[in-house]
């Protein structure tokens, strides 16, 4: 998939999602006008959207706040392409 193809696919996808589920199949068929691959790609994405449900609807922090809070914390860290120096037990320091 390249950028131009994605734009084509997205155009059909958006049109389909604008319509009630019952109308989507015929809309896609018409919009794709014989381009089978386009029809397949778009249909797969519509399916994915429906299946996705609340996928990524909750921000990551809702899941992973505990990791940020109590995870392998380090003293004197820098973040970046970024060295995190971590303690491995008492008196031990190791570079990650």
């Amino acid at each position, binding site marked *: *998939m*390249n*950028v131009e193809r*994605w734009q084509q696919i*997205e155009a059909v*996808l*958006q049109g389909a*999602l604008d319509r009630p589920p019952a109308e989507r199949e015929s809309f896609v068929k018409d919009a794709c006008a014989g381009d089978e691959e386009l029809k397949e790609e778009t249909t*797969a*994405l*519509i399916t*994915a*959207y429906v*299946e*996705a449900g609340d*996928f*990524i609807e909750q*921000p*990551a*922090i*809702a*899941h*992973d*706040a*505990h*990791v*940020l*809070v*109590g*995870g*392998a*914390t380090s003293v004197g*860290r*820098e*973040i*970046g392409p*970024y060295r*995190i120096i*971590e*303690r*491995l*037990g008492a008196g031990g320091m*190791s570079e*990650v």
Partner: protein
Amino acid sequence: MMLEFDAMNALMADDLTEMLLEWREGDKAALNRLMPLVYDEIRRIAHRYVQRERDGHTLQTSALVNEAYLRLAGQQSVDWQNRAHFFGVTAQVMRHILIDHARRRRYVKHGGEVRVIPISEAAEMSMQRASELIALDEALEELSKLDQRKSRVVELRYFGGLSLEETAEVLQISLMTVRRDWRAAKAWLYKAMKDEL
């Protein structure tokens, strides 16, 4: 450093504004200097998130991020351009922290030499979650090559915790556009991850 809270905030406010300006003007090193500041604020955000969850409150992540910005900028009324960039940076930093953690978690499992000792069992990221996050990060990277704006929408919302409206404001696009970007990106990412995992 035992400065008065206000004085310290004022210092950081100047630094932050300058860094944001520099970063906007293409100075990537400014981002490196920003990161530790933002990282500290993110940990504060996470702490409060965990605390509120324990107390049974649901939390708007973006409200915390907004507060973090106000703390760092040390001002009540905020220049929208700075604020928008702060949200953008925070989202990127959050993504980096979590993906970094996920990678190290996976690396440990595969017998790497790096060892990460969690403070408590509960603080450890599950292997499944680590795999999910890495897959999402990679899929998001792929999406950005096809459609950078959609990738930014997802980064701001999923990692930065922004609402649809806030995302529209940060990116200076319409709410309708954000909605459409979000749903198309969701479909694309979900499919990409399903194909991968």
